[in-house]
């Protein structure tokens, strides 16, 4: 009952949130444009000149350095558009017209690179718009100061504010640029690829074209696709839940064990899991693969004891291979959870336990009533990230199982594949980049909707502000 009620309240909350969001939209827009309207109606001639050419207004206000900087930026952007930006932007739509031919030294268009540079051009335009607005806001601010006869902030002072009030702007510039280029650009690129025919024999120097939703249509019309998708998705979900739980409680248990008063030499005991932590994952995985193979040491001992060799990870194993995957993942991940839990446990207020002991609570009760709620509460964000990481855990089965294994009833996949492994087989092994991108987009939408909702509703997100 309690669960049901909780679910219900969850959905009600979700609904309210959504309704509120929609209701507030017009106001949000209005408040956004109020400022713009004010500038347009109240701005003077110098503001106007900044509208026309970035930095001109500032120069007219005799703010030489700032004005020059904006002017320089204006020139830089125009130069960029002339030299490559405009061509890149058009390239995003055409995706190339001349097919390259290395035999005759014809350079040709590389559609994929053109798409990438096109996205970059769009990012640059957005960047330009941001700077343009900043330029106008700045000159308007100066105008307001001049109108009220307040002295405008000097260039020096503004620069020094970059280390103070606007320190975040300085500090975040590099990270934001880096993330834009190396995280966002690739993702936008992959999303766009889902709408092209890139892949198969159609790779540069051949020209790639936009095909709209054709790839999605093909996925959903393919008879073998849906059954495989749901089988893999089910296992993927189970895997993410199980492995997160195992790693979490394994690490917590280990930390509790090491926290016991009677354990002497904690540092040494803790060293063993850390050893496992220090060896790079791919080495561990290759080692375990060999260990469980037919020719590996485990089968050596089984056979020496007179038993039959067991195909732990072979073609015919299903749950055996899955359990080994869970175990190996636990071996790799438990040490870090242990470290985390150890740290958290050391922060628990010991008075609580003292009080509990006076009340005569058993140690089990103490764990359930004090330790677990505390630790669970403290690690919700970590749990969410761990769940996502496990959901997309590519390496485990990629290294553990032979690449050629195909299972009955699966399309280009086997029964231990996670969605990400399946994607890899399609997009990299079989070259179906566009189809792979389309599927990953579908998966991405599903997973991100789920986790974003959980995140927004989670106490740690809501309580962020109340914290201070």
């Amino acid at each position, binding site marked *: 009952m309690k669960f049901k009620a909780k679910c219900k309240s969850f959905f009600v909350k979700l609904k309210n949130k959504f309704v509120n969001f929609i209701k507030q939209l017009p106001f949000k827009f209005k408040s956004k444009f109020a400022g713009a309207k004010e500038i347009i109606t109240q701005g003077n001639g110098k503001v*106007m000149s900044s509208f026309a050419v970035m930095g001109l207004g500032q120069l007219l206000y005799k703010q030489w350095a700032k004005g020059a900087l904006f002017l320089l930026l204006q020139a830089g952007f125009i130069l960029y*558009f002339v030299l490559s930006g405009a061509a890149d932007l058009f390239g995003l739509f055409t995706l190339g017209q001349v097919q390259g031919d290395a035999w*005759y*030294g014809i350079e040709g268009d*590389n559609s994929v690179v053109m798409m990438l540079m096109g996205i970059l051009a769009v990012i640059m335009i957005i960047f330009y718009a941001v700077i343009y607005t900043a330029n106008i806001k700045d000159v308007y601010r100066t105008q307001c100061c001049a109108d009220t006869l307040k002295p405008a902030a000097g260039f020096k002072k503004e620069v020094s504010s970059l280390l103070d009030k606007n320190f975040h702007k300085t500090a975040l510039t590099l990270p934001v640029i880096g993330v834009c280029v190396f995280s966002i650009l690739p993702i936008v690129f992959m999303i766009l690829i889902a709408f092209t025919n890139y892949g198969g024999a159609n*790779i540069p120097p051949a020209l790639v074209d936009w095909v709209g939703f054709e790839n999605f249509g093909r996925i959903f019309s393919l008879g073998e696709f849906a059954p495989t998708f749901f089988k893999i998705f089910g296992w993927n979900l189970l895997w993410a839940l199980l492995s997160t739980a195992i790693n979490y409680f394994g690490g917590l248990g280990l930390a509790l064990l090491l926290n016991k008063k009677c354990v002497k030499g904690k540092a040494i005991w803790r060293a063993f899991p850390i050893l496992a932590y220090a060896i790079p994952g791919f080495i561990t995985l290759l080692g375990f693969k060999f260990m469980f*193979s037919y020719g590996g040491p485990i089968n050596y001992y089984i056979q020496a004891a007179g038993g039959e060799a067991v195909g732990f990870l072979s*073609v015919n194993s299903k749950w055996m291979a899955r359990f080994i995957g869970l175990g190996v993942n636990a071996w790799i991940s438990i040490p870090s959870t242990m470290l985390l839990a150890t740290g958290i446990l050391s922060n628990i207020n010991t008075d609580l336990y003292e009080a509990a002991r006076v009340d005569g609570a058993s140690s089990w009760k103490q764990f359930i009533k004090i330790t677990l709620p505390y630790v669970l509460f403290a690690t919700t964000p970590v749990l969410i990230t761990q769940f996502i990481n496990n959901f997309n855990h590519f390496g485990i089965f990629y290294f553990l199982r032979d690449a050629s294994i195909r299972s009955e009833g699966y399309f280009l996949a086997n029964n231990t594949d996670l969605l990400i492994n399946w994607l890899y087989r*399609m997009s990299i092994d*079989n070259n179906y980049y566009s189809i792979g991108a389309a599927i990953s987009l579908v998966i991405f939408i599903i997973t991100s909707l789920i986790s974003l909702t959980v995140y927004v509703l989670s106490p740690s997100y809501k309580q962020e502000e109340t914290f201070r």
Partner: protein
Amino acid sequence: MKKILPALIAHIAVILAIVISFGVISVTADRSASGNEKFTGVLERNVTLHVLENNTAKEQGYLKELLDSFNERYKEYGIKAVDANIDQYNDLEQSGPFGYGPDVLYQANDAVMKYVDGHHILPLPLEKIACKDLVSENAWSAYEKNIDQQSYTFGVPVNIQQPLLFYRKDLLPADWETEWDDNKNGIPDMIENWSALYRFSKQIRQESGGKKYGYMQSLCDSYFSSGYLFSFGGYVFGGEDGTDTRDIGFDKGESYKGAKIVRQLASVMNMECTEFTVSDNRYSRLAEGTYFATMTTPDVYTMFIREMVNKGYTEEYAKENVVMVDVPQVPVSGDLEDESLGFKDMTVMGGVNGYAISSYTSYPNAALEFVNYATSYKMVKKRYELLGISPARKDVVDEIGGLHKEINDNLDGNSIYVMPSVRATAQIWPPMENFFSLIAGDMLENKNVYSTDEALKNGLKKVSKDAYDAIHTLSGS
């Protein structure tokens, strides 16, 4: 207000105008380039060629000799060849267009021909290739492709790769001349036909109580196991030149008989044959005498010798007793226990390794000169001496004779099925490997799912279908 809105609009209009005009210029720009003949015959001077060779050539010191003697010879032209020092399987398609690939590459024919569709390697002027008439037609054809009714050649064959039987001569039974030589030709039966090898393996396993094996092989390795299918009419791709990827023929002809042989062979092995374990452990197992024989390509011969020496044998003894021979014959009946119909030659999957020239090289003529030099009589012979490969050059082969002559004859006599020179070849292996390890496991675990011809036929049909799916179903073409 009146002034500001126009200013904003003017600004946007100017930016738009700039973007559109330069965008349109870029789209309409005329970029028809000239199609110059690359092989002008005029050697580029003072250039450095980056040569990609395989690991064995580097390890055994052949590459160094090749580069040194070439550089000595072409010193006066200022042409220098250096090791490209990149991975031997480097994908030219990825590295070439951006200028990171080698000038000259040495790879297997399927790898090289994969680059043709994207024009990543240059068609070679046959008339300028010195060894043109000294290499057999079939070796050339591995590097040929018809484009618009015209035949082009993309590589110069150097070495013929085919699986061979490796066995330990000193592990033959002492009485083989009386007991294991039915046709009295002085060659042990077990290296002449699969039936005898099968019988012998069974005997070894029984006598040793399952501790030792006769013939061992990773049966799942389709490079070796697909040969049984080809021997009975199976093929990879159909069509005139064997490149029609819509016609996949693993189940064609009587290929199920080949699958039956694979399944029977599993019964004299253990479960390791369903994985790639045997491919890795056969060097040490053969050296310690646990295996009597295995099948692999001649380029790994030195690894067997090294392991024998590790196990305490002298190198001479090792070379004397690890013997490579042509693969045994298969029973016509398709049943290893039924020799009544006699035997026939086995068709094996093979390949031709050779040199190709990257389309992105700036010095095609110097590169061609290098290829001519590396495929000269002197260098091919040296390659044979240092690496033990089977040369594709007739004059060298005639001089060496023996097994290498046989391999050349196999190629001429079509009992080597040359790996199809199309890009989709990479996608046929997984379903095949999966099938072979299924039937081998089926035999060893007595599941008997594949014990009938019908089941094998259906299994092969599924392999063909899976391969077809991998290549075509999602591509939409």
